[in-house]
């Protein structure tokens, strides 16, 4: 059950707008369907009243929007942050990507967001609307009437394996903050590690070959904030269009994950936005797991000013020749 409602957030936003603390609000508004909730910028209480939505699909992580938003205007922007978003928020602050003084962050508790794919899997085709009712979701379908699904069965993967309910950054908190959770988020990675090399190759070939190079994973990622991307370079060896050789998809996804290694907070946005449902978070988690295994346990964004593992070293670090064995890969 969602602890915060649209009304609570609306009241908070209206209050801060009226007081002049902020002059605009980053929030969610409905897209074409109830389940494609879109990030939007609101400047007045009337606009908020009209379009603002908050529900089981308000999953977008606003941290990255702050990079552009804080450069645009002198005034403060109000942003609502779920616990996982606050890690990205801190990570971006660590990298000096936005001006903290121009942000008013309100932490909101989160019990997990829904994944439309899981709903469709259970309710069948023709989902025309989803409503929240306590611990259940009422799903309206075109062909089959209304269906009631338990929210717990519709959670996104990243929420099932939620790593933390703790807000690590905020100016104000609605409700209470939680704790870091000892989650099972690496179980899937471990399963892959235990496969043979051939099985892993087949698995990834199958997953990555669906990639249509829409770049959504890159564009949404709060760690991918370069002004110019290597993949925008026509000589990078990877075309900026649909993939024509299986090499390209591997290159793109390995390099994408590598470029955020040590800075990825595991917010799971990449997998959420992937239109082809490629489990991209597994690549990021593999890096996180390896970093934890090889060096010290590290959670990007847990504190502002941490030194990321890839720009750090110890004299006694392991040799690359030992890496595959230590990482637990069955090779």
């Amino acid at each position, binding site marked *: 059950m969602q602890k915060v409602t649209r009304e609570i957030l609306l009241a908070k936003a209206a209050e801060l707008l009226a007081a002049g603390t902020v002059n605009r609000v980053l929030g969610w508004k409905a897209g074409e369907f109830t389940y494609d909730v879109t990030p939007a910028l609101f400047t007045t209480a009337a606009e908020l009243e009209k379009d603002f939505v908050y529900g089981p699909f308000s999953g977008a992580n606003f941290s990255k929007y702050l990079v552009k938003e804080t450069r645009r205007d002198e005034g403060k922007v109000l942003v609502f942050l779920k616990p996982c978003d606050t890690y990205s928020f801190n990570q971006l602050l660590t990298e000096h990507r936005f001006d903290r003084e121009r942000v008013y962050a309100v932490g909101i508790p989160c019990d997990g967001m829904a994944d439309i794919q899981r709903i469709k899997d259970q309710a069948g085709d023709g989902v025309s609307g989803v409503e929240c009712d306590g611990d259940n979701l009422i799903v309206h379908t075109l062909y089959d009437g209304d269906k009631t699904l338990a929210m717990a069965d519709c959670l996104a993967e990243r929420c099932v394996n939620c790593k933390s309910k703790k807000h690590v950054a905020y100016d104000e908190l609605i409700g209470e903050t939680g704790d870091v959770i000892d989650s099972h988020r690496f179980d899937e990675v471990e399963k*892959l*590690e235990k496969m043979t*090399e*051939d*099985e*892993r*190759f*087949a*698995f*990834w*070939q199958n997953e990555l070959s669906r990639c249509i190079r829409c770049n959504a994973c890159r564009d949404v990622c709060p760690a991918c904030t370069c002004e110019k991307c*290597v993949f925008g370079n026509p000589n*990078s*060896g990877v075309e900026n269009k649909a993939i*024509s*050789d299986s*090499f*390209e998809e*591997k*290159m793109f996804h*390995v*390099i994408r*994950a*590598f470029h955020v*290694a040590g800075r990825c907070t595991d917010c799971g946005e990449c997998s959420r936005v992937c239109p082809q449902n490629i489990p991209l978070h597994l*690549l990021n988690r*593999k*890096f996180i797991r*390896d*970093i934890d295994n*090889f*060096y010290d346990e590290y959670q990007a964004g847990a504190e502002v000013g941490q030194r990321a*593992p*890839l*720009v*750090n*070293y*110890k*004299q006694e*670090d*392991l*040799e*690359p*020749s*030992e*890496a*595959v064995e*230590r*990482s637990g*890969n069955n*090779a």
Partner: protein
Amino acid sequence: MQMTEFKPKIVAFCCNWCSYAGADLAGNNRLNYPAEVKIIRVPCSCRVNPMFILRAFQRGADGVILCGCHPGDCHYTSGNYYTRRRMALLFSMLNFLGIEKERTRVEWVSAAEGAKFAATMNDFVAQITALGENKRLEDLRCKK
């Protein structure tokens, strides 16, 4: 039909200050190492971006070896320490995707280790020859 013997293509990234000089010493001492090894000189092993390694495979390399100064001996003090972390993670990730772990290697070769350079290259080429052609990271458009 006549079967031609498989000759691997090996790309060796060698740092200017240690390994490249090590290769030079191997040459001066008339030590043999296979002609399949193509050396690319880089200012420091840490200049090698993970993309270089993937690009080498794309362009037809069957194995990529990265040589640098011994940890602690970097001309730029700490470059090879960063290399070590990056490559450990990259190699583990490539293997996670099912790429044979034998195709990539990092070796520390100093300017005084001409013999080690030749031995390393002989060993690596033998390893790749045994492993066969690079099929999993090939780009068919680059095949002649």
